[in-house]
């Protein structure tokens, strides 16, 4: 138990307040889940470094601050300090500001027949039964304390339904803005994505906020991908430099589906991404790609878990980090191959590029294999820019700064190229070509 009494009081009173706010607006089953989740949060407590999963990420700065739930969407507080995480994107778009659905900024017309992208808060009022089978049904708050916190306090998020056989021509963009408010604000975005069998879609989940504000985003995304579906999912995180960003994503994949997750972390002062992929059928192809850029005194922690539960599945995981100044990163990639999961083919690679002598990465690949006929490999490399390559570029007339930039870009390019959204690739090209400003600063307004 690591929650100090006053913090516990804070969350209890916040919960009581929430209960009053949502009383009569939410179904009883959700209230039960919330209560269970709060109890789970209290039982688990804020993580301490004594726990294996948190040994290298100190949550004290998060624990020591008091955050408040924003009461309204606050889109009037969106100013030039918050720029969109990606520009030039042609997508269906659902926008949330400080955790609340903002219809004025959302573009949801033209979705194909049967496809729905809605605010969870709205669906809970109009048709809660449609959410009941999916919301918090994947056991996501049992073990991960921040998911429990999210489940107790979630207010809104995107409920995405793609019907069987549907092919979406444009990406679906779930966009979360945080703004600078009088007191530090917390939001608990909750996304539920249900892709029907044989459907094809690209989902972009993005986060942005101002550099000059302390705030906390604590998201949970639950995905169910139907049989033979083909889903690409890009999470683009461009929070402000001082923001706390914790996310828990849970992928439940069915037989013969293809799922590619691209986790791009450009912002946030303290970041923890937890990604669990459950391959719950045969013949699944799952790709988990990651790219994180860490400068200043920022800290980025990626934990992934790839569960091969059934035979004949293939998984590829490549995480790449670029660390500069006093940036810190943690990567733990666990691959679990169950006894039944024969003929598993799993490959994990983790690479870190250290651009300064003070940057540090802790990498922990873990294989747990209970089947006997599998192919599993993992590899981790950490290094600086190759001196020989630098000299080669310079010997052709390219100056040192450009040569460093070119090689840094080259390091990341393999991940960028695979992202199936042109506007995101262009944005990343732009960011990588001015490496020293990883997360954007005051530029365009929305």
């Amino acid at each position, binding site marked *: 138990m690591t929650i100090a009494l006053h913090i516990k009081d804070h969350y209890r009173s916040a919960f009581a307040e929430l209960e009053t706010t949502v009383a009569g607006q939410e179904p009883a089953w959700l209230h039960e889940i919330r209560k269970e989740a709060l109890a789970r949060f209290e039982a688990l407590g804020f993580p301490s470094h004594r726990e294996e999963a948190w040994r290298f990420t100190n949550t004290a700065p998060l624990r020591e601050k008091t955050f408040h739930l924003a009461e309204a969407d606050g889109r009037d507080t969106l100013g030039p300090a918050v720029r969109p995480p990606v520009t030039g994107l042609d997508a269906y778009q659902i926008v949330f500001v400080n955790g609340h659905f903002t219809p004025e900024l959302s573009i949801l017309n033209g979705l194909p027949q049967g496809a729905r992208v809605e605010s969870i808060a709205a669906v809970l009022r109009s048709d809660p039964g449609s959410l009941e089978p999916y919301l918090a049904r994947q056991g996501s708050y049992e073990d991960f304390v921040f998911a429990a916190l999210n489940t107790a306090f979630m207010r809104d998020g995107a409920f995405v339904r793609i019907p069987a056989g549907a092919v979406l021509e444009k990406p679906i963009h779930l966009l979360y803005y945080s703004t600078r408010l009088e007191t530090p604000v917390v939001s608990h975005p909750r996304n539920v994505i249900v892709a029907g069998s044989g459907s094809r879609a690209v989902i972009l989940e993005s986060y942005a906020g101002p550099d000059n504000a302390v705030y906390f985003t604590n998201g949970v995304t639950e995905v169910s991908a139907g049989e033979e579906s083909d889903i690409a999912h890009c999470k683009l995180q461009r929070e402000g430099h001082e923001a706390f960003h914790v996310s828990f994503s849970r992928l439940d994949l069915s037989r013969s589906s293809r799922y590619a997750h691209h986790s791009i972390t450009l912002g946030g002062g303290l970041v923890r991404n937890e990604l669990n992929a459950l391959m719950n059928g045969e013949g699944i192809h799952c790709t988990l790609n990651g790219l994180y850029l860490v400068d200043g005194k920022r800290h980025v922690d990626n934990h992934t878990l790839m569960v091969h539960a059934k035979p004949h599945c293939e998984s590829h995981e490549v995480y790449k980090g670029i660390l500069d100044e006093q940036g810190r990163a943690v990567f733990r990639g666990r691959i679990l191959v169950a006894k039944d999961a024969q003929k598993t083919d799993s490959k994990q690679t983790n690479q870190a590029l250290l651009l300064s002598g003070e940057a540090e990465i802790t990498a922990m690949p873990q294989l747990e294999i209970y089947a006997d006929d599998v192919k599993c490999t993992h590899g981790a490399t950490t290094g600086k820019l190759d001196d*020989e390559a630098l*000299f*080669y570029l*310079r*010997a*052709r*007339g*390219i100056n040192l700064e450009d040569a460093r930039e070119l*090689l840094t870009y*080259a390091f990341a390019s393999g991940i960028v190229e695979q992202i199936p959204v042109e506007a995101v690739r262009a944005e990343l090209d732009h960011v990588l070509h001015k490496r020293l400003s990883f997360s954007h600063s005051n530029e365009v307004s929305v």
Partner: protein
Amino acid sequence: MLEIKNLQVSVEGKKILKGIDLKVNAGEVHAIMGPNGSGKSTLAQVLAGNEAFEVTEGEVWFEGKNLLEMEPDVRACEGLFMAFQYPVEIPGVTNTYFLKAALNSKRKYHGLPELDAIDFLDIVREKVKLVELDDSLLKRSVNEGFSGGEKKRNEIFQMAVLDPKLAILDETDSGLDVDALRIVAGGVNQLRNPNRAIVVITHYQRILNYLEPDFVHILAQGKIVKSGGSDLAHEVEAKGYDWLKDVIPAEETVEV
């Protein structure tokens, strides 16, 4: 064009070059030959600006400017080109992107406007024929997965595009079969002109059959021990480096 005076170079405290003097004029082709470990590649690397080598004494003048004071990229922009003995693989950077960046760096240095993709491609199409380089290699990452011969041809192709005043070919012939050697040497020959100087560094005489150097220098134990015309190369070929025993100083004992 190039004047080297008493150049002395050490690497990790060990003296490799012990006083090189060499003068190269525009239009000339010089061959520098020598046995393994004589310091040939060190000379090429030092001229290109590799910081792993320490110049302890001497001067190098390039077109009247102090070469040793220039950064490697400035040397390239001033018109020096070294074809690497071991071209470096750069995954994630396409050959075309790399070369366009290099050419535009050079143009920018000289106050010329940068070339757009179309103008650049015109140059590439013309030069790529010179060394019979497969078009598909242009779209691939720099040297990644290239065969030994493809890497060397890629070097000469880069030379053709960058159009240097002085080209130093560091063992460009090593590892090439007869056909590849003929193509590479053919490319170099076409790049020969009265305004350009070429220094060919090699262990063997065979590339010189194609290139016909104006001057041949024998480098041994960090010094040029003999200079002459192209006949000298044939003598080395016929008699081996042992024939030069009387002009090569005995190995110095390293002081501890």
